[in-house]
């Protein structure tokens, strides 16, 4: 048995700026802010036969990060795995109009976009830490992540 790992599941967000921000914030949290304390799961793998991903999301706490108010990551995760512990809505943080603006390539990320990534990352961190605190002392099976 090991310490509880938290799954952070970002939408794929090919259709709007919020999707790009969602992905980058999720990576920043897991790679830089809380390295080793969580894992990210490929959302499309839930459908493509990703038993490990589905199993992880059933057994472990999860946060979904959605770029727009369609909340695809949350709804797809809950349909295929189970209820998520918390949700981060990028549109609530950077504004609906901005979030639903045109998607951008990572080669066009500027300082303003980076500021959005930082704000969303902080929101994920707050929720991530709250969940970690709630699970302190509890142990879940170690899975292949």
């Amino acid at each position, binding site marked *: 048995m090991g310490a509880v790992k938290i799954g952070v599941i970002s939408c794929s*967000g090919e259709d709007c700026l919020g999707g790009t921000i969602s992905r980058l914030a999720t990576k920043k949290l897991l790679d830089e802010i809380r390295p080793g304390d969580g894992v990210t799961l490929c*959302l499309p793998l839930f459908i493509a036969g990703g038993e490990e991903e589905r199993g992880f999301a059933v057994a472990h706490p999860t946060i979904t990060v959605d770029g727009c108010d*369609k909340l695809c990551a949350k709804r*797809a995760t809950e349909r295929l795995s189970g209820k998520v512990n918390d949700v981060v809505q990028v549109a609530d943080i950077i504004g609906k109009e901005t979030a639903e603006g045109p998607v951008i390539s990572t080669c066009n990320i500027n300082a303003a976009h980076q500021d959005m990534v930082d704000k969303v990352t902080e929101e994920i961190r707050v929720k991530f830490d709250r969940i970690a605190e709630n699970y302190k002392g509890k142990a879940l099976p170690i899975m292949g992540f």
Partner: protein
Amino acid sequence: MSFMSKKVKVIPCSGIGKSHGLLAREMGLRVVNELCPQEAETECLAYIMTEDREILDRVKESKFVTIDGCPKMCAAKSVAHVGGTVAQEFRVVDALKEYRGVKPGNAAALNEDGWKIVDATAEKISARVKEIYGEE
């Protein structure tokens, strides 16, 4: 009366675990936004996965080109799962065979080599997209 676009839908997996997913995403964006804006468009793969009626109606009328980062083929399988017609599947792992040993960056940012791979592969994908569009 509803209008259904005849544009080819280009769907990258946008996998988040490795650079392969970002390569797929950037290839898709390059094709849709720069190389084939008249012939191609994209849909959110995550939205397709919700199986909402609105997206299912669009899916069944369209031809798809999928771009998958890894051999699990999530984009192609997800589109097929909801009844979409996948006219062409592209795999980033196949494109990378021409660049053995090259490190394209990571899942958050590509390096110069990564962008070269995006440029070259997106050209190939766009050529196929135009063929499929022309078959309509």
